[in-house]
């Protein structure tokens, strides 16, 4: 696993931030000055690729591809996948990404300003496609297996892991790099702010408050998270460190409203995920919720979880209280956050959860970090257009 996030740029930093309940959210004067209704966002460190990637390759990489490169570099190192091995074996990539707004805007601004397509520069076409992350990483790391971008809105990262696990399970691939990337600049979310979805609160670190009674919107985040998925046999053969198993993937579509979720769609995603594996409800020691801190989204997810889990009040948190909504990246980063908790025997408290409301009281939200041993967790990711993805992960 490798990550580039507002909670840290190494797994150790992120583990500590999770344990300590540190918020990665800040107030951005730049966004306020530019006309944002909500000027809160995650503070994602800039990535410096100069020591690793030459200028001509960096020209093709927008911000999120740079985050993804740094995360992938660390993930490959942790998985002990060196370049020699990659060169001699078929390693694939499926990565979640669903926008490249700033890069697209900047190249088209030059086109319009100078009245010439050449003014866009050589990198513009490669930077401005949704598949920019997979096209760049596949070339830089010489990946010769599947090469595909999963664009499933805020479930993109989760879908990438689900798809990769499916290809491995069916024997079509032995090893797939997967994850999710999210641009953190303001242009990527200006129109999202425009539909009044973002949190309004003076205290930035208290603004993202999933499941809490006083939540009033999400806070946009960003970065990248990479996981290496590999068949058990291949990993054992290589002597690779094995962290966990992707036990099952469930998915569904709401077939309903473009932005307002329902209960039935997410519930079917959870049910399908549970149906396709031998995991019993009581085996699941933790649920990492999608909950983004919006009124309706959190309420509908709480109801879906309660409906599926019945009498079992499984511990639930949303790490978005600390990170904000990492959108295209979230489904992958939240698997990493949860694995870090699982491997280190704790559940990070759902930051800023103080009181439930009538609709979220049906789930057992853990407010403070606590020591807890669990060997299986479930992670939800839902997105615009009613795309739902659920993963169950088991400790190994």
């Amino acid at each position, binding site marked *: 696993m490798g990550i580039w996030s507002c909670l840290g740029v190494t797994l150790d930093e992120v583990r500590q931030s999770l344990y300590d309940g540190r918020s990665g959210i800040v107030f951005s004067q730049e966004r306020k000055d530019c006309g944002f209704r909500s000027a809160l966002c995650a503070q994602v460190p800039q990535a410096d690729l100069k020591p690793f990637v030459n200028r001509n390759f960096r*020209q093709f990489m927008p911000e999120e591809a740079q985050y993804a490169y740094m995360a992938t570099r660390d993930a490959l190192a942790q998985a002990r996948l060196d370049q020699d091995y990659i060169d001699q074996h078929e390693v694939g990539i499926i990565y979640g990404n669903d926008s490249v707004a700033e890069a697209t805007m900047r190249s088209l601004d030059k086109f319009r300003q100078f009245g010439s397509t*050449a*003014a866009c520069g*050589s990198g513009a076409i490669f930077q401005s496609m949704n598949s920019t992350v997979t096209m760049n990483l596949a070339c830089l790391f010489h990946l010769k297996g599947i090469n595909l971008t999963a664009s499933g809105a805020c479930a993109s990262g989760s879908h990438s892991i689900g798809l990769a696990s499916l290809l491995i399970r069916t024997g079509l691939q032995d090893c797939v790099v997967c994850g999710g990337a999210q641009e953190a600049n303001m242009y990527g979310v200006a129109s999202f702010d425009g539909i009044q979805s973002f949190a309004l609160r003076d205290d930035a670190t208290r603004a993202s408050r999933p499941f809490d009674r006083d939540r009033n919107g999400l806070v946009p985040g960003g970065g990248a998270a990479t996981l290496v998925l590999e068949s058990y046999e291949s990993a054992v053969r290589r002597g690779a460190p094995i962290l966990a198993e992707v036990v099952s993937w469930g998915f569904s579509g709401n077939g309903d409203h473009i932005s307002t979720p329902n209960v039935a769609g997410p519930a079917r995603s959870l049910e399908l995920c549970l149906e396709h594996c031998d995991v019993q409800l009581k085996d699941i020691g933790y649920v990492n919720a999608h909950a983004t801190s919006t009124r309706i989204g959190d309420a509908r997810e709480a109801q879906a979880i309660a409906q599926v889990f019945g009498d079992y009040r499984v511990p639930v948190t949303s790490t978005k209280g600390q990170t904000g909504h990492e959108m295209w990246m979230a489904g992958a980063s939240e698997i990493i956050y949860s694995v870090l908790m699982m491997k280190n025997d704790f559940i990070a408290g759902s930051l800023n959860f103080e009181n439930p409301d009538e609709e979220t009281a049906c789930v057992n939200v853990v407010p403070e970090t606590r020591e807890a041993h669990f060997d299986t967790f479930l992670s939800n990711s839902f997105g615009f257009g009613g795309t739902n993805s659920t993963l169950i992960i088991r400790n190994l």
Partner: protein
Amino acid sequence: MSRNEIIEQVNSLLSEEFEIEQSEFAPEASLKETLQLDSINLVDLIALVQMTYQITIPVEDLHKIQTFNDLYNYIEEHLPA
């Protein structure tokens, strides 16, 4: 703008854009080889000239610009009055 000013500014811009030390530049050196340009990032050279000097280099003129000197000459000849 004098020729020396053009040379100084162009070298500085090229060095920054393509991340190559100016000490590697020479008047008769090949731009493509020195700046490690291929058919794709050659566009960045065209864009740089266009954005800095408001000079559009038509594709048919590209073959005339092989060396640093060729580039200085082209800019000098086409600078808007």
